[in-house]
């Protein structure tokens, strides 16, 4: 997983809970990197899982809630760091472009990035998006947070339904996003 995700997570913890909490999370998690991250580096995703679990213990907030909230926070940061990717008219247009446009550009910047598959299909009336998420890292909750950030950015009300189709090897989730505004 690219270091930018870890850096943003650390920044989020520090900005929200303070530098003492960030220190506690890093010290109490099993981090082979020692909590030293650079945006361009690549680190095991298990370090992020470990930090989230520690943060959950320290704050008594459910892991799922924390991961989703981090996804939303991360979307806001991507918006600031890479505004060029978000010039679409609607959130569905943006989500449908992730696999073939955004991820292609990300791979140009970070050739070693291991990206999840996001295969989106827009309905004919443009009001429903079927969206398949494939990943070995089981971060569907992060995807939900990112989607919530997306809908909020475009000021749209969208209902997200999840259908778990995971296997032992990888997480496969079908998201059905319906516009209700």
């Amino acid at each position, binding site marked *: 997983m690219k270091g930018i995700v870890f850096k943003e997570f650390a920044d989020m913890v520090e900005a929200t809970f303070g*530098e*003492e909490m960030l220190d506690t999370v890093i010290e109490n998690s099993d981090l082979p990197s020692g909590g*030293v991250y650079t945006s361009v580096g690549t680190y095991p995703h298990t370090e992020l899982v470990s930090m989230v679990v520690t943060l959950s213990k320290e*704050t008594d907030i459910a892991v799922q809630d924390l991961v*989703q909230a*981090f996804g939303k*926070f991360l979307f806001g940061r991507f918006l600031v760091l890479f505004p060029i990717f978000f010039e679409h008219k609607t959130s569905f247009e943006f989500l449908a472009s992730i696999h073939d446009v955004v991820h292609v550009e990300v791979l140009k910047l970070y050739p070693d990035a291991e990206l999840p598959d996001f295969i989106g299909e827009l309905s004919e009336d443009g009001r429903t998006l079927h969206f398949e998420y494939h990943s070995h890292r089981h971060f569907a909750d992060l995807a939900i947070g990112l989607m919530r950030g997306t809908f909020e950015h475009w000021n749209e009300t969208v209902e997200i339904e999840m259908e778990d189709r995971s296997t032992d090897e990888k997480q496969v989730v079908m998201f059905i996003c319906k516009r209700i505004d």
Partner: protein
Amino acid sequence: MDIFDLAKKAKIKKSESDPQKELENKFVRLDRKFNREKMARVQAEEAIEEISRNLYLANQEINSSNQELVKLNEELSSTMSKLTSAELRRKSIIITLIVAGLLFIISEFAIEPVLEKEIDNKIILILLKLLILGMLVPIEIIVSKILESNISKDDEINESMYQKILEAAYEDGIITDMERSVLRSSAKQLGISKNRAVELEEIYL
């Protein structure tokens, strides 16, 4: 729910109440943070150095391929020039042979019977035949000139092609080293002199 809303619900253990102890803890935490930032900077510098080295090597490879390309273009240009000249020569010989054949037929069936009837002197007859043969030389020269004038029409086509290459090179407003090298070898290949290439570029700009 965003992270700030969640933070309001968080149940966090209270930190050290002794101000002195808390200050010491804070110092330790900040020291750890400082060391992490320092390590991250070192890692970032190492990453930049590696990227920079890879870019340098890739650039070297591009330069080397470019030089090979220029060399190949020059060889191609020289071969094309030889081929053009051989083709000209072949055309010129064919035309001269056709004219010689015509002259032979005219001379054999129209001029010679008349001359043999009118002139008894064999030497003068041979001299006249040699004169007819000698006419072939200026004919070949004239044919070559005509073919060369057609080549000058080809030059116009070549210049127009060069202008198109110029347009493509200037599309982004910048001429890179590679584009400059391609322009040079294209000019050479199209038979455009260095001065003429500069003139064409000035006209384009």
